[in-house]
């Protein structure tokens, strides 16, 4: 892996000290809870180190026409590009550690205090490696897999016969048209559907989902689990809204497990409330 040019010396230093195959004396870092740690190990993986990717991004300016439903593609691209960069950097760090993948990825966006159009994106997760060095768990194109599933969910996913490929996402920033004065006067005192608004929200969500699905197709996934749709308006104009879809693309481990071999969870009633 020739990433040495891109990674500063102190980071290389850190990577060298990490635990991995053939370096059992090293240490590992992770943000796992005890239960997560135990379950990741039970799933046959070892944590090697926390992987971080950060991207501080200046988001360009784009205004929607006052009375028009439209995607603000400059903003969509910014929101997507920044997250992608943060994720790519995190993945690069994982590859440097020799990780098979990253679990428990958390993706955050923060507005920086001093400016309204500078956003900080961060991706952080724990790089893991298969304890017996099984090569079959890498993500698409030999890259480490990424997944926002917790250690517990990772264990369950493997037991359901699937492995994570990569986090897939789709973003769409949309300007919802304002209503004309005459139109809104016409609605006073009436119960009506505002179809132009319905249409805008529908379309924006659909675009975000389509983009995510397209990423899943590219990754060669069978499906996407844990899809979450966020709506956010990062202090843009009042009628601008971002739809962001994110999930973990998965694929069957080898051949699909027969359903009857998947263990049925035991039902318990916790008696200490």
């Amino acid at each position, binding site marked *: 892996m020739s990433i040495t040019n891109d990674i500063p010396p102190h980071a290389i230093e850190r990577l060298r000290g990490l635990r991995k195959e053939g370096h059992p004396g090293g240490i590992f870092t992770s943000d796992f809870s005890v239960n997560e740690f135990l379950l990741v190990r039970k799933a046959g993986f070892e944590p090697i180190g926390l992987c971080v990717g950060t991207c501080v991004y200046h988001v360009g300016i784009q205004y929607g026409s006052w009375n028009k*439903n*439209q995607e603000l*593609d400059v903003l969509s691209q910014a929101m997507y*590009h920044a997250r*992608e960069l943060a994720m*790519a950097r995190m993945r690069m760090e994982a590859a440097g550690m020799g990780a098979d993948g990253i679990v428990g990825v958390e993706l955050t966006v923060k507005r920086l205090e001093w400016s309204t159009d500078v956003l900080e994106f961060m991706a952080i997760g724990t790089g893991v490696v298969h304890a017996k060095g099984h090569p079959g768990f890498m993500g698409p194109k030999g890259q480490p897999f990424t997944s926002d*599933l917790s250690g517990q*969910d990772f264990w*369950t*996913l493997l037991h*359901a*016969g*699937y492995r994570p490929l990569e986090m897939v996402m*789709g973003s*769409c920033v949309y300007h919802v048209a304002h209503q004309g004065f005459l139109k809104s006067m016409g*609605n006073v005192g*009436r*119960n*009506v*559907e*505002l*179809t132009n*608004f*319905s*249409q805008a*929200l*529908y*379309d924006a*969500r*659909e*675009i975000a989902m*389509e*983009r995510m*699905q*397209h*990423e*899943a*197709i590219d990754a060669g*996934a069978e*499906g*996407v*689990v*844990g*899809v*979450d*749709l966020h*709506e956010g308006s990062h202090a843009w104009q*009042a009628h601008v809204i971002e739809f962001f879809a994110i*999930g973990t693309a998965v694929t069957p481990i080898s051949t699909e497990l027969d*359903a009857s071999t*998947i*263990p*049925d*969870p035991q*039902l*318990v*009633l*916790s*008696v*200490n409330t």
Partner: protein
Amino acid sequence: MSWFDRFFSGRNSGAAAPSGSEGRLAEWERALQAGGLPSFVESRLREAAAGRAPWLSTMTPVELAMARRHGIRPVAMVSGTCCYHFGQSWTLGHSEGWHLALARLRDEAVAAGANAVVDVKLRTSRLPLRSTMDFTVLGTAVRIDGLPPSDDPVIATVPALEFVRLLQSGIVPTGIAIGAHYNIVSGEKYEMPGRGMINARQGTGQSARQFARQNQPLMDLSEFWEAIRRTAMRELERDTKLQGDGVLAHTHFGQLFKIEKVKAPPQFVGRHIVIGTVVHDRRPGTNAPIELRTVLDMRDDLSPLLAERPHGHNAYPVASEGGPI
């Protein structure tokens, strides 16, 4: 492929018209008016149903495992949105808004060849518009092995885990029921009983000072508020009866507020909405075939089963309802 190519290939792929284009918006317009689906949505769902495109699902891995174990497969994420202006009636507006959104979700589920939609969440995006709310429902369409595609899929707000657990017990979730009511009254008697009589009888009623010192129930206001809640419950009952024989109502939202008027008695506005999953219990009275073990959980913090899911229902601020007594 770099992110940038992906970005653009995403928008121009397949049969879909480019995003934000006039063609795409015109298709939405037609679909919303005529009650169908735009061609690009239909093709996305059809591809997913045929297994040619990856399925999308809100299910967690545990839910996926449990669903697969019981022959249930996720197909696609389906949604319905209706942005509704309730200028005339909050009650009708809310009930109509949710029903329209649900009808659209159902259309998408049918196009995906689904037997059911699970984990349906009620969401709103809080546009800064007066008397207008965006009613959005979002869920995962699933296919049950061995059943033909349904033209009237079951719609359930319960997550896949609970859906399976209900089915195991012989209870079928059949749909979503909504009960809403809104009313408005004006008069001082709602705020201060007997106050109206002061003027009429020249001081034989209680004074504001007397009132402030006394413990007493506000009967008129209680009655007004109770009637609203009761009506909402009756509506829920009626909606339930159309679809099944019971409801697990998870969302209760009520608001009572006062509007001060100039040179007129104050107005009181009350509104209440209840939403839940309708179930059809085929064998009422039989014990659920579930074996339970009691365990002592050693966790100090909240169990993950009780923790709120990050992106659940957000349509009504249920937490503002007040705490336990």
